[in-house]
Structures are given as C-alpha cells and as structure tokens.
C-alpha cells in the first residue's frame, strides 16, 4: 500500500468516525435543549400521581356509595353515586343489611361498618373498632390510640381510608365507598328485570315465560342492553358510525373533487400552463393550511356537527389527492390514449377509456389508505367540531371521573381503526391485484 492511499484511507476513516459520533452527539444536545425548554425538571412537581392511581383503578373497578343522611336517617345505595345507579328501596346488594334503624356493611376481609341511631362503627381487622358518635353538634371519636395516618380527623369530618374501601363521617351524612372489580352495570341497569342474573339464568330465561307479553325475552333483553342508561350503548354505536361516516364522506368527496381538478393540474392534460400552475399552488395551499384551520373556519359557517368534520377532511384531502393524482396522471402511458384517439374518441372518452383504467390502481390505493387514516383524524376532528366518538371521549375525559367509560371508548376506537385498516387492506389487495 502506497503512502498516499494509506493517508487517504486514514483520513476517510477519521471523517466517518467523526460523523458517526457527531450525529448522535447533535441529537443528544438537542434532547438536552428540549429537556430545558420543556421544563422536564418541573414535571415531577406538576405530575399528579394520585390522579394516575384514580384513573387506573377506575379503568378496572367501580365503587358503590352507601350513604346515610344523618338528619332524616334515610340510607341510599348508589353505584358511583349516580342517580341512575341507585338501588331501589328494598333492593340491596347482599353485602348491605338493614335491621330497623341499623345498616350493616360488609367491605370484605373482616371490615365491618355499622350505621345506627347512636352513630357509626367501623371494625378494622388488626386494628380495632373506630366508634363515632355525634354529641352536642360535635363528633366524638373513640379508637385505639395513637391514631394511624389513615384516619383523618378534623372538627367537622372524620375519614378513614383502608385497602377495603373509604369511610367518612360528617355532621350531615355518613358515607362508605366499596370498591369492586369490573365495569358496573355494563349489560343491564338496576331497574332491569335481567339485572344480577348469571349467564345460565339468562339463557334459561330465553326459553321461559315472557316477562313482557308484547315481545320475546330475547328482544326485551337486547332492548334493555342497547338502551342501558349507564353506558348508552346505542348512542356510542351511533357515535362510532358518525366517525366512520365523517371519514367516508370526507375521503370519497375529496377524491371526487380532486379527480377532475387533477387533470387540470397535470402537465400532459392541462390546456394552459398558467392554469396548471394555479391549480398546483391551490393544492399546496389547501394542504398547507391544514385540517385544524379548515375545521375552525368551517365550524364557524356550518356550526358544530359531523358534516362540518366531513367537509374539513374533504378540503384537506382534496389538496393531497389533487397532488398525487396529478402526479400519477403525468406518469401514465400515452400509447393507450393514442390508441383511443385513433378511433376518433373525444376528450372525455379518451379520459374514460384511455386514462382512468391506468389511474385506477393508484387512485384506489390512495383513497383506501386515506380512508383508514381519516378514521383516526375524524376522532380528533370530532373532538373539535363536536361529533362522533371524539366528542364522547373528550366529554368523558373532562368530567374526570368516568374513566371506565374512557377505557371503553378507547377500546372501541382501537377496534374501529383496526377494522377499517384491515377492511381497506383487504379491498386494496382485492381490487388492485385484479387490475394488475
């Protein structure tokens, strides 16, 4: 090896090593800058890990409130404390028992709570009895000393938090929360005749005597499930449909608008150079303005709703489709058009029989691909324009307590997008392999 080659090689290796280190170093530097500009250090202070705990436990469990109004003495049992989850008088879950004025609540694992005329008692296994009695407008607490940190005492309120549940006593009311796994009342609400039945019992009821003489038990059951007052399955299904509808109308509409315009923007079809240039810039403009801005502008004119969302998708994608279609048009084979022309066909016939068959695979695959991606966009746009599953999702998140519904919607959205994905993939394979 001559010296010259040796030095060149060495220099090249040095340069390569330098770039090999420089690029990761630049990335690390950039990330460091981001850490400062995004205030990562302050994140620990801002993060609310208790919120995370509430969210995760709500995803997979629900709580039932057993509360007594201390003035009237009436006891209500309500799932998530909601009116539509309230047990009717006389209808009790088996872990709550009433005898005269006394209410006995079994939280499980030996945790027993009793409400009676004197006040309330909570037996915590391994600790002892917490006894609370109101006296002269104050709360009198008797419990083994010293008080542990999970018992919180103020002048007006005593609250106890254990692994089994939460308990709180104030002058006006006493309340117990029992946590149970699962999604409450997912199939039937409390007022439904099918509530609390096992699958076996339900199957037996299908063949049994009619509960409602007007319809079969199966129809009744389907009705009760579909119009569940807690989960609103019918409304959720409709919202999903609305989201898919937005994506469908937007994508197909965009393709219909973009196709004729693409001819005007393609160099081999456009009659005028200025016209072509103008349409090109129009497509760029529509694409560049972005869905967010179109959504806002359209929502002002058409009001909130799914049509506005569909139109926003339509406008944005007209730009994208116009660009890809016109590029595809410029790449078609002229010979076929020439052949059609030789038969004396007019411009429209040449486009229909000479150009469209060549364009169809590109067109179809683009449209189907965007149909799937727009289903996802329609969720986001729905959150802004107020339509479809996006709206339900943001509403459920904003209340900050119905996290089980958020989990339900998330699962449905993922299923919907995956379904659209495989449907569009299937159609694409079917149509395009046949055309090819």
């Amino acid at each position: 090896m001559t010296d010259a080659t040796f030095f060149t090689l060495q220099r090249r290796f040095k340069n390569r090593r330098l770039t090999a280190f420089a690029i990761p170093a630049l990335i690390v530097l950039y990330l460091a800058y981001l850490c400062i500009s995004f205030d990562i250090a302050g994140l620990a202070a801002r993060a609310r890990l208790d919120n995370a705990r509430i969210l995760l436990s709500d995803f997979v469990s629900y709580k039932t409130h057993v509360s007594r109004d201390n003035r009237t003495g009436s006891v209500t049992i309500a799932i998530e404390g909601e009116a539509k989850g309230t047990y009717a008088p006389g209808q009790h879950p088996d872990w709550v028992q009433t005898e005269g004025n006394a209410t006995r609540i079994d939280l499980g694992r030996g945790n027993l709570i009793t409400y009676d005329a004197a006040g309330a008692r909570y037996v915590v296994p391994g600790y002892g009895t917490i006894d609370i009695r109101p006296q002269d407008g104050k709360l009198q607490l008797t419990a083994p000393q010293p008080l542990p940190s999970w018992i919180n005492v103020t002048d007006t309120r005593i609250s106890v938090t254990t692994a089994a549940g939460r308990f709180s006593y104030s002058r006006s009311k006493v309340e117990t929360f029992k946590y149970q796994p699962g999604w409450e009342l997912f199939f039937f609400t409390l007022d439904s005749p099918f509530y609390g039945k096992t699958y076996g019992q339900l199957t037996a009821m299908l063949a049994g005597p009619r509960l409602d003489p007007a319809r079969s038990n199966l129809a009744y059951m389907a009705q009760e499930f579909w119009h569940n007052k807690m989960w609103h399955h019918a409304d959720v299904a409709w919202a999903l449909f609305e989201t898919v509808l937005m994506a469908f109308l937007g994508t197909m509409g965009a393709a219909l608008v973009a196709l004729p315009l693409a001819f005007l923007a393609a160099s081999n079809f456009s009659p005028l150079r200025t016209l072509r240039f103008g349409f090109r810039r129009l497509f760029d403009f529509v694409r560049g303005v972005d869905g967010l801005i179109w959504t806002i502008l359209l929502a002002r004119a058409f009001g909130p709703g799914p049509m506005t969302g569909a139109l926003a998708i339509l406008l944005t994608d007209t730009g994208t489709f116009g660009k890809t279609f016109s590029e595809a048009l410029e790449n078609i084979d002229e010979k076929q058009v020439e052949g059609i022309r030789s038969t004396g066909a007019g411009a429209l016939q040449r486009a229909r029989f000479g150009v469209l068959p060549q364009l169809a695979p590109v067109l179809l695959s683009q449209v189907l691909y965007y149909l799937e991606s727009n289903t996802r966009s329609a969720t986001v746009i729905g959150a802004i324009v107020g339509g479809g599953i996006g709206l339900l999702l943001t509403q459920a998140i904003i209340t900050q307590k119905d996290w089980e519904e958020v989990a339900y919607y998330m699962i449905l959205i993922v299923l919907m997008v995956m379904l659209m994905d495989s449907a569009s993939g299937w159609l694409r394979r079917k149509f395009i392999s046949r055309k090819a």
Partner: protein
Amino acid sequence: MVDITFGPEPGKRPDLSNPTESYLHQIRRKRLYGAILLILFVALMASGFHTAQDRNAGDFLSGLHQLPAFPAEVLSEAWANRADLPGLFLQFLPSLLETINIAAAATLLGGLAGAVLALGSTRHLARFPLLTPLYRRTADIMRAIPEIVIALILIFILGGGPIPAVLAIAFHTAGALGKLFSESAENADLKPLEGLASTGASWAQQIWLGILPQVAPNWLSYALLRFEINIRASAILGFVGSGGIGYDLKLALQWGGGKYDQVVAIFALLFLAIMTFDQLSSFARNRLVKGR
C-alpha cells in the same frame, strides 16, 4: 376451455360462431355491474351526507353563504391593525418553536421506538423470531390509538404543557414508523449479515453494521415524512389543550372580536411553517431516496 371461462350452463355460454355478439354480451354485463356499483356508491354518499347534515347544527346551503363571513371579518380586522402584525409574529414565534420542538422530539423518540419495534417484528432480523407476532400486534395497537386519547389522559396526570403532547405523538409515531420501517427492513439484503456473522459479530453488531446502513436512507425519509405529519398533529393537540401555537390559537379564537389580528398572525405562521417544512423534507427525501 369455454366451460371454464364462462361456466357450464349452456344458456349462459356465448355463441362462438358470432364473436361480436359474445363480446357485446360481455361488455354489457360489465357495464351493468359498473352502473350498479356507481348507483350504490352515489346512494351511499347522498344518504350519508343527509345523515351528517341532519346531525349538524347548521345545514350545508345556508352555511355556504356564511362561509366567507368569518374570514372576511377576521381579515378586515387584521387589515385595520396591520401595523401590529410584525410584532405579533415575533410574539408567537416562541409558541411556534414549541410546536415544532414537540413534533421533532416526538419524531425522534417515536422513530427510536419504531426502530426497535421494526427490528423485533422483521422475521429474518429479529433477535427472538418467535416474538415477531407480538411486536407486530403492539405496533398495530399503538398505531390505532389516536394521539388525542393519550394526550388528554396524560394532561390529566402530568398537567398541561408540551410533554403530554410529545409522549402522545411519539406513541402513535412509534407504531406507524414501526410498520413502515419493518416493511423496508424486510427487503434488506441478508448477505452482509452472513458475512458479519462469519466474523463472529454479535447480533447488535450485525444489525448496526449490516442492516442499518442499507435501510438508513429509507428510514430517514419515512421519519421526515412523519415529521411533517407530526407538526400538524402537534398544532392540533395544542388546540385541544397542551402547549404550543395551537393553544394560543384557541385562546385568541375564544376571545372573539378584538384579537382577530392574533388569529391571522397565528394562521400565517402555522401555514408558513408547514409549507417550509414540507418543502424542506420533500427536498431531503428526494435526495435520500433517489441519490444525489
């Protein structure tokens, strides 16, 4: 031959002694199917549009008249205060930078995670070939969750600001890039791998030296394309509640009349940024994929 092509029933068999007739027969049938499909499609579009319009607050035709009203109002107010616009551009530049930073950080993180997913889900390259379906499903699910879902949940836990947006976009990006990366890695030449394996290179070395140089241009070009998409997504997420220029836009819009000059400034900045990055990235992608 004829039986196979046209079916065994004699009634449907075209008369071969008359080729024109059989050709026209075929064409007529094709046209009929085409027409039925077209009618179905038009009916679907029309009824779908009606349903959407029924659920909308305003209907299409009356809204069409109002369409120019809002832009006209905004633009006229901005025109009246046109002297303020340069100042407003400067005022919103930091938020724009934040939006772009969110997109860049999300693309970087998502790209790294996507590379891991891609290497895990490509059959010939995976360290544990048995786990490829698992990696694939993971990427599919990550791709299917819209950014807004994760962003809103993270805002609840982490509070507002750019970090929920970064994590949400990165999550989706990882799934999307994981799929694209794995598709291009599947086409990579495996000979360099064998060569490296014969020298006793470890799996990491084989991938780093044998595969990455081959797929780097493609991967980079996909990542740049994703970056374009992520700038838009980051603006939208800002509008829904986490930092950046989208949030400023929401505040300005909520204020209504009086702050429309800000709205125009933000629209213009966002438009310019999106156009600039689209052009830059399409130039870079062309160079990467087609060579210089």
